[in-house]
């Protein structure tokens, strides 16, 4: 399985993602934002970080960078594109995912472990996954998912919510909503479910000595699904 991680100026989770993908068997290539062509890929990842210093709006500049034309074409052809954290912000700014990510409700940069519940497993990211609730890390200032009433209705109708912030047992409530996101949304799909954006960082949960192993479960399952 071939994967590509795009590095934008200001990305800082690109190498973590590279380590994670390789650990679970992907042949990963790092791709510079100024390149025009994507290498042959089964998965393209937009990593976390602070592309372009979060100028204007998070992800807005990166969404217009040269490589994004190829990423848009790849996604439109059904290619799997996953955006983590700032990568999620880039995907909404690029129009590949609906909605937008606003400043966190309480204006704090949040850096902590959270639990997220998988909403639906009928997609190539979570099919066959053995767990329902994952402990992942979040680190963001703008993760407050927002969209219009009409859009949230459409997202719901198409079952596009990927992950909810929850407690350890998977209960979805305001207490476990770290940033004010509508409906506790931590991650969403596009309609076709080949594009996934999420605020949590599974790549930070792949080493039992450093963190947990819920990221390992995610990546192991993902590569098996893509095979």
């Amino acid at each position: 399985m071939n994967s590509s991680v795009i590095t934008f100026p200001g990305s800082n989770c690109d190498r973590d993602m590279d380590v994670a993908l390789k650990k679970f068997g992907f042949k990963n290539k790092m791709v510079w934002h100024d390149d025009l062509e994507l290498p042959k890929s089964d998965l393209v990842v937009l990593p976390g970080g602070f592309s372009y210093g979060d100028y204007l709006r998070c992800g807005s500049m990166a969404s217009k960078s040269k490589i994004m034309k190829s990423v848009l074409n790849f996604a439109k052809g059904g290619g799997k594109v996953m955006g983590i954290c700032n990568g999620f912000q880039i995907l909404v700014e690029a129009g590949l995912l609906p909605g937008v990510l606003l400043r966190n409700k309480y204006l704090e940069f949040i850096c902590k472990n959270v639990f997220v519940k998988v909403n639906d497993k009928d997609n190539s990211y979570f099919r066959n996954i053995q767990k329902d609730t994952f402990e992942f890390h979040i680190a963001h200032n703008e993760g407050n998912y927002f969209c219009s009433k009409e859009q949230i209705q459409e997202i719901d109708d198409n079952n596009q919510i990927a992950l909810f912030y929850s407690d350890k047992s998977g209960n979805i409530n305001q207490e476990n909503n770290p940033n004010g996101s509508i409906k506790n949304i931590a991650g969403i799909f596009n309609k076709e479910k080949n594009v996934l954006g999420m605020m949590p960082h599974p790549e930070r949960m792949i080493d039992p000595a450093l963190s947990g192993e819920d990221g390992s479960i995610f990546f192991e399952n993902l590569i098996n699904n893509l095979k």
Partner: protein
Amino acid sequence: MKVSVIITLKKDVLDPQGKVIHRTLDDMGFNDINEVRQGKYFEIDTKGNDKKKSEEKVEEMCKKLLANLVIENYKIIESR
């Protein structure tokens, strides 16, 4: 032609920064405020001298980059 444009959050969008500014102003003694909404202001110095054309270009810039129309509105307030 210098085109000035302001970008504001749409009415239904939560503005936590505006809320904090409101609260701080309130603490400072400015107690007669109903609401504070924070926005952005751009001054774009375009090369042409045709007002209509420059404004059209800036409008396109707003739609494509400067504003996110899911949450923001834009308004050209001056061209000179």
